[in-house]
């Protein structure tokens, strides 16, 4: 079984919700759609207060190459456009819509029929994906049309579909692979066509044998696509790690996957691409796992973007008494929510409720130089050294020590026996080095 060669950790999987089939969450009374729910420039609203909108209608336009369109997830009336706290707790502009009925744009094909081979060329597919506001659904929310636009002079050779889902607790990709397998394969074919590659590999960790066998069976009818079973190891879902595991190629420091001929998309994105191209449906809903150690019921919901997190928790039986932390995403890379009435965005893969006993950081002790952080770092960095440079504010030296290679997987902080906040200092360093780089180019 393949895996990436260096580093990695094995956090307890806790994938309690893997047996819960995808349920459609009832529509909320109102939704809040932040204009910045993708990496890059925020979208610009094209609706005004009082406007009637339908589900799937464009409500905010992409404002640059790295930006994405946003479509209304519901039908109703635009109530206001004003800043409101997003999952970071900071106020950012958002469109508020009061839900009325559930009327979709007439252009959207709502039938469940599988459409296999739409007759479109590469450019048409890319344009359509861009228009439908599709972003990377693995969590990074990078606009997908940018990723499939191969820059001049580069050539894509292989498409990798990321079904690894190495984050503990999360099961949304797992369920999607089980329930929408064929759709994912058609989406994969469309992405292959867009990229002009004739080879795609779906990487899945061996802890999801049902998904592996299901997709492998389906792949018999799609000879260009195959499933690769990967050894369970976090952070296998990291783009560079996945490429290394599957192709053996290493993306050089500071470069992009396309530099080694690879393009990686999440299974969720492949499904969204399928819906966008064959059903004409923009990205306005996604699968969200709601789970937690003390939750009696766990679920995977099909949720409209903009639905408040509180509704998801309520629908799953409410917050357990002992909840001490609510995480947007998985426990390794997710974000602790400061408020619970924030909305689901395109990047929300799960809501994890941590018991209060597991919510606090551990006491920090001196570094005992055990070297565990070095050995778990999948990028071959020295987290202990970066932290000490960070404490001394030696940003130039941090840049030399390749702090920018860090993908913030958190394995170092996870493994430290002294409970040291290694990643906190590395993040501080990355921000400061970014500032340095920007000031240099001025």
């Amino acid at each position, binding site marked *: 079984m393949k895996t990436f060669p260096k580093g990695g950790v094995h956090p307890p999987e806790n994938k309690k919700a893997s047996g819960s089939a995808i349920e459609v969450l009832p529509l909320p009374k109102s939704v809040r759609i932040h204009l910045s729910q993708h990496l890059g420039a925020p979208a610009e609203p094209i609706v005004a207060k009082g406007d009637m909108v339908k589900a799937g209608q464009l409500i905010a336009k992409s404002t640059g190459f790295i930006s994405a369109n946003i479509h209304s997830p519901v039908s109703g009336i635009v109530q206001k456009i004003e800043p409101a706290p997003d999952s970071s707790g900071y106020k950012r502009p958002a469109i508020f819509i009061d839900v009325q009925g559930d009327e979709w744009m007439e252009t959207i094909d709502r039938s469940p029929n599988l459409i296999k081979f739409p007759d479109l060329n590469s450019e048409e597919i890319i344009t359509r994906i861009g228009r439908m506001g599709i972003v990377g659904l693995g969590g990074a929310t990078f606009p997908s049309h940018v990723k499939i636009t191969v820059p001049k002079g580069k050539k894509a050779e292989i498409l990798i579909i990321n079904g690894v889902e190495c984050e503990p607790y999360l099961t949304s990709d797992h369920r999607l692979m089980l329930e929408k397998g064929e759709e994912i394969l058609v989406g994969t074919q469309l992405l292959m066509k867009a990229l002009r590659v004739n080879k795609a590999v779906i990487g899945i960790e061996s802890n999801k044998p049902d998904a592996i066998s299901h997709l492998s069976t389906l792949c018999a009818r799609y000879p260009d696509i195959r499933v690769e079973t990967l050894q369970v190891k976090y952070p296998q879902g990291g783009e560079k790690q996945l490429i290394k595991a599957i192709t053996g190629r290493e993306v050089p420091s500071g470069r992009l996957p396309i530099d080694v001929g690879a393009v990686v998309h999440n299974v969720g994105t492949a499904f969204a691409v399928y819906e966008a191209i064959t059903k004409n449906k923009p990205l306005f809903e996604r699968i969200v796992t709601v789970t937690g150690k003390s939750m009696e019921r766990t679920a995977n919901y099909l949720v409209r973007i903009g639905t408040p997190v509180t509704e998801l928790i309520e629908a799953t039986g409410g917050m357990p008494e002992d909840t001490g932390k609510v995480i947007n995403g998985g426990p390794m890379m997710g974000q602790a929510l400061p408020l619970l009435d924030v909305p689901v965005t395109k990047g929300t893969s799960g809501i994890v409720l941590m018991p209060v006993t597991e919510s606090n950081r551990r006491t920090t*002790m001196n570094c005992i130089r055990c070297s565990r952080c070095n050995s778990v770092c999948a990028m071959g960095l020295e987290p202990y050294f970066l932290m000490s440079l960070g404490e001394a504010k030696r940003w130039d030296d941090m840049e030399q020590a390749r702090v920018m290679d860090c993908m913030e997987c958190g394995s170092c902080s996870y493994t430290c026996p002294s409970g040291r906040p290694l990643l906190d200092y590395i993040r501080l360093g990355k921000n400061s080095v970014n500032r340095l780089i920007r000031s240099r180019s001025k």
Partner: protein
Amino acid sequence: MSATNLLTISYSPHQFGSESVQKIMYRVLIAMVPAFAVSLIFFGLGALAVTSIAVVSCMSFEYLINRFMFKAGSTLWNGSAAVTGVLLAFNVPSNLPVWMIIIGSLVAIGIAKMSFGGLGKNPFNPALVGRVFLLISFPVQMTSWPKAIESRFAYLDAATGATPLAILKEGIKNGQPLSDLMKEVPGYAQMFLGNMGGSLGEISALALIIGGLYLILKKVITWHIPGSILATVVMFTGILWMIDPGKYADPLFHLLAGGIMLGAIFMATDMVTSPMTPVGQIIFGAGIGLITCLIRIFGSYPEGVSFAILIMNAFVPLIDKYVKPKRFGEELKNG
């Protein structure tokens, strides 16, 4: 919402491994049990007395310094002071007077460890600093070795004899042929089990290897440091032995005699004072092996493991500066 707790906000990761400093230290203590048991068999009362005094005084000094000089919370139960205590005891003869053990503990904990800021900050192995301080200050008491088994029920009044390494050093200095000297030292099987004179924890290679395997199995240490030390000793002494077997002892003798096993498995592998990268650790180990052999064969002391480790401890920052782990994406492979 039914929850009554305030929500905690912190940056990721939100989940942590179960490893802790305390667990690591307790594993080291467990790994030292076989060697301690052997020392009880061969040195009896003395071993028990010296080890208890060293552990109690090391822990006391750690507590007192933390409490009254650092005015900080107690670090007593993380186990590191106890480890230093046992290691210090392992590195001294089993008939060392109480007050010397206490001075050794004070130097180990007070000077070598706490004066640099406590656990993790010390550049030199505390137990070895304590031992070398005692060796230089009290050379007579530190080199009078109780005879194994004979002196089981004695402490200060134990009958003493020379260690195998000392027999060789003295003999060669007096011009005796090696073949005669080798008859005076115990057989290799006896040395392997620990039936010879020496510091109380260093005698049994067997017990130390068992402890070392446990540490490797529990991922407290890796093979790099002990492996490279022992390999260097075998190579260096092996070359000399092949050149002149009448003058130089064979590699096996050098592996079984003295503190090389204790040093390689328990002293040099101290995380705080050894390099961070596997390659750095091999360089570090090779340096220790080389310096040990140079002192043993050409130096004036019969044994040199402690000096070798302390000297190489000083090179650790330099090694860590120049030996870096292989970065991901450093070279374009198949790309």
